[in-house]
């Protein structure tokens, strides 16, 4: 029987990009003689911890955890490592770990913000009104959101942020943006921590009767989901950027790092930064292909 690499990834099943990434991990795992098992606890922190405790009890050799609330995992991680299990933190850094794999939330967010800022400075004389669709309820959301905001203002200090609201699903993005565009019909920049939400914002933009190719408009999100990438590939619309997860690379990194740590090698952190995909960039095509499109 193959050794197990157990991955706990909140909402893994809901985000297309993540699914692709974990499928890559599974394939790579098979190649290298591992079974990669995935659990998706949704947003239920307690269930996530419960599952990890069950894995610890089972003595799974490697546990990889996307920690939505990093600090909450210190003690479980400690217990796992005391039981001789390799602990890899995904997308975050905690004290009790063998390595971090994934990406860095704040810098990734900041890169999107800076790009938007540069775009505004170049095309709109550095002036504009911005809406931020964040997710304050999770640390990753706070980090990405802060990165976006600070990056934007760093490159375009003249931009006014008129609203900051929570939205991560298409429905939330659509509903919130529609309401906000009532209060701020002239808002022209919408940045979000999740592509699904900014996809919803794009729908709201159109539903509000705005030009979908408005030269003053800028919508950008993160993760590189299929609908976002398709809009980018097409071009000629206000959806102008997404920070795409290098899905296959991340998937491979999970398995390879686990393997190395098991063999006693020191890997250090394996950071795979998200990649900025912009309008009509060939990257869009490439990432779409990774996701089977």
């Amino acid at each position, binding site marked *: 029987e193959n050794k197990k690499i157990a991955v706990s990834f909140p*909402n893994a*099943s*809901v*985000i*297309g990009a993540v*699914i692709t990434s974990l499928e890559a991990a599974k394939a790579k795992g098979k190649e290298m003689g591992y079974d990669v098992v995935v659990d998706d606890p949704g947003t239920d922190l307690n269930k996530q911890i419960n599952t990890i405790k069950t894995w610890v009890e089972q003595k799974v050799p490697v546990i990889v955890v996307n920690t939505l609330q990093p600090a909450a995992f210190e003690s479980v991680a400690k217990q796992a490592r005391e039981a001789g299990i390799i602990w890899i933190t995904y997308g975050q850094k905690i004290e009790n770990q063998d390595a971090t794999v994934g990406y860095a939330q704040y810098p990734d967010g900041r890169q999107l913000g800076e790009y938007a800022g540069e775009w505004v400075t170049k095309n709109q004389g550095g002036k504009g009104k911005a809406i931020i669709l964040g997710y*304050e*309820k999770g640390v990753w959301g706070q980090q990405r959101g802060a990165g976006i905001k600070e990056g934007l203002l760093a490159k375009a200090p003249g931009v006014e942020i*008129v*609203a*900051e*609201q*929570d939205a*991560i*699903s*298409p*429905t939330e993005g*659509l*509903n*919130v943006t*529609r*309401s*906000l565009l*009532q*209060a701020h*019909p002239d808002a022209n920049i919408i940045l979000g921590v999740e592509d*699904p939400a900014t*996809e*919803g914002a794009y*729908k709201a933009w*159109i*539903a509000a009767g705005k030009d979908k190719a408005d030269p003053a408009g800028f919508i950008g999100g993160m993760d590189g*989901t*299929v*609908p976002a990438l*398709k809009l980018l590939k097409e071009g000629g619309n206000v959806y102008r950027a997404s920070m795409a997860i290098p899905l296959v690379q991340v998937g491979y990194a999970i398995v390879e790092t686990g393997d190395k740590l098991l063999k006693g090698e020191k890997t250090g952190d394996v950071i795979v930064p998200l990649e900025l995909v912009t309008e009509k960039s060939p990257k869009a095509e490439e990432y779409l292909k990774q*996701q089977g499109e």
Partner: protein
Amino acid sequence: MSTTAVASSSPVRRGPPVELVVNNILLIALVLLIAYFTMQSASFLTVSNFKVILTNYAAIGVVAAVMALLVIAGQVDMSVGSNIGFSGMVTAIAMASWGAPAGVGVLIGVGTGALVGLVNGVLCAYLRFSPIIVTLGMLSVLRGATLLINSIEIAGLGDTFFWIGNGSLLGLPVLLWVVFAVFLLSAAFLSLTVWGRYVYAIGVNPQAAFLAALPVRPVVLALYVATGTAAGLAGVLLVARLDGASPGSLGLQMELQTLTIVLLGGVAFAGGRGRIFGVFTAWVFLGVLDNGLVLLNVPPFVQLVASGLALVFAASLDALGTFLAPRLEQRRRVNEQLARATA
């Protein structure tokens, strides 16, 4: 034998319209809320913003209008959130993968919802399984099933669908035509048709209704199917609005939002009591609240607190109403007597 002279009730003098006030206490709260937001933001009280409010909330209104009937009949369907997601996803697949035309897509989505309702109905009405447990179970089953058939988003469903979700007809958004029609139908059903009376009778006392030879199980089954159909329709509307479907989040937690609207609208959870107009008011109330808080850019955490407090406030109005109503009724009767005595 003494025949009581049935005097044609004399024109009784009306006091202040207290009763009206009590009956429509939520409506008053809504007016106050609207007044407050209007003072705070110039962009609030505009036709276009109200279109936004109601279209944002259209899908949920469709479900609430119909689920209210089910709750009045003493039942409940906690699976509607996932049913919305499931039916929406089936619609999206039908159109995007099998190339179904828009009309067929709508029918497939609505039909899927109805089918789910049928399963719930057979389990709860005929096999007498506990409605809460069964439909909570279905909530989980359907979300899992949605993700199993298609775990990633689908987008781009064509122009007709986009028009359903975002277009207008005679100046009114299509979504609003639909949700108003459903509310009207539901209200008409409840107050004009024979089965509407059955719904109340079953909700108050199912055993007595059964012994009065009413078709208790068929009515309850039909209400589950209707609720499922409404969830299916809501799924279609959401998908049309988003021009796509995301399996994990479509309809998520809408069962709780729907139930909140229904209860806030004055429908008793135990059944037997409720009016569609109350549910309609609650629907607008929550829509206005959501929209107003976002318009004012109230921070998300404060929004949670504010919308929670609004619920507590609404509950307090309701309690005040139940406290005042009998007292006001007494006063009215005394006035009537006095009027008769002095006549």
